């Protein structure tokens, strides 16, 4: 849930934008981290473990634990706790290891 009126910091969520998780539009606000915006939309699973294939969520929020790796606008393994949302951003779960992609590279 977004906190529209923070008791100490006051009102600040003033610029609503739309991000897409697996093509589903979600409401976010300018300046939020991707992880924060997803959590506001009740998305708790951000990453997935490689060996046991378990869900991972926000853990450290400081770009250290890598539990929140997702694919953002075609870039794999983005730390979503450190990257800010942008209107129209396309996010997907990075469920598999990144693949070499010549189409992007040669573009």
């Amino acid at each position, binding site marked *: *849930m977004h*906190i529209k009126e*923070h008791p100490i910091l006051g009102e600040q969520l003033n610029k609503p934008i739309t991000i897409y998780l697996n093509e589903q539009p979600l409401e976010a606000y300018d300046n939020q981290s991707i992880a924060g915006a997803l959590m506001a939309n009740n998305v708790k699973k951000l990453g997935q473990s490689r060996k046991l294939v378990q869900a991972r969520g926000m853990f450290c929020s400081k770009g250290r634990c890598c539990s929140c790796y997702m694919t953002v606008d075609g870039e794999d393994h983005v730390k979503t706790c450190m990257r800010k949302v942008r209107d129209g951003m396309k996010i997907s779960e990075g469920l598999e290891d990144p693949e070499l992609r010549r189409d992007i590279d040669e573009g």
Partner: protein
Amino acid sequence: MKADVLIIGAGPAGLTAAYEVAKTGLCVLIIDEHQQAGGQLWQQSQILALPDIFPNMRGFELAQFLVERLEGLAVEWLLGHRVIGVYEDGQIGVTNDKDVFPVFAEKIIIATGAAENAIPFPKWTLPGVMTIGAAQSVVNRDRVKPGSSAVIYGDNSFASDVCELLLSVEVNIVAIVKQNKQLGNSTFGDMNIPLYENSSIIEARGNGKLEEIDIQTPHGMITLKPDIVLIDGGQSPILDIVYQLDCALRYQAELGGWLPVYNHQLQTSKDHVYVTGNATGVSNHSALILTGMLAAASVCEALQSLPPEETEVVRNSLYSKLENEEESDTFSARKEHIKQFSTPQLKDQFIS
């Protein structure tokens, strides 16, 4: 890029050091991973205890103050840049994710702070289990409720600040679970939160997210259904960069574990590298500011922008302030750490 003094980390200690160095006329370059200077202060909505030179402020107010104070001084910024390593000649390598380039500086002040420690338990990897600092970031940085009902787990002092914050944004706090044995009340502070001491979480359960936890208490096992568990495991200094710079290290439990050795000048075993803030040992906000000033004074002295006699007076007064304002255990550990400067437990870490 070039500067007289390179400061790594734009948190309270780094920004304080930047001000003190720049006002003597030296050119300062500040690097920080975030796009905005201020470090963790932006997430801190509580009122901070600060040295008497500052009025009492909330964390984000202090951030704003420390950044604005640098306007008009010879300070250059590399925000949104990460230090990723060191070149053969000892220069720091920086990236903006498009490029990697060296930064040349006479002196380096490391102000990289501390990171939170984890407390593992079965299924602590489930989404919903996070550090207490993460919950604070989500609320104050992202303006998002991390969950609707929380259990706080750990023995550290961070809990009370964050409890207040969470309650203020209507996150229900179901319990505080502490592993230690201190005898106290069965509720936490005057917030009426159930407190379980000498207890531990023995299992978390949930299908793809946290749904339930079992807590072993001295009076038996209880099961709670929070959707977030916030781990309050204390902090340890971040070592990545000092280790790469080949700075010698010592273990000092009261200061948070392994940290670089430093002398009275906060200078490490590498002459051109100084440390400040939580990188000198985990302490309180006053210590961040005061060690920022201490490192700055020593760097200015070394670069001759402050005369030695004057610097010694400044340093002595800062140390006596520090003694007053940080926990006495922390201060004695710091004194001990300085005394042991020349006997590191780990040095030449890259020699086979």
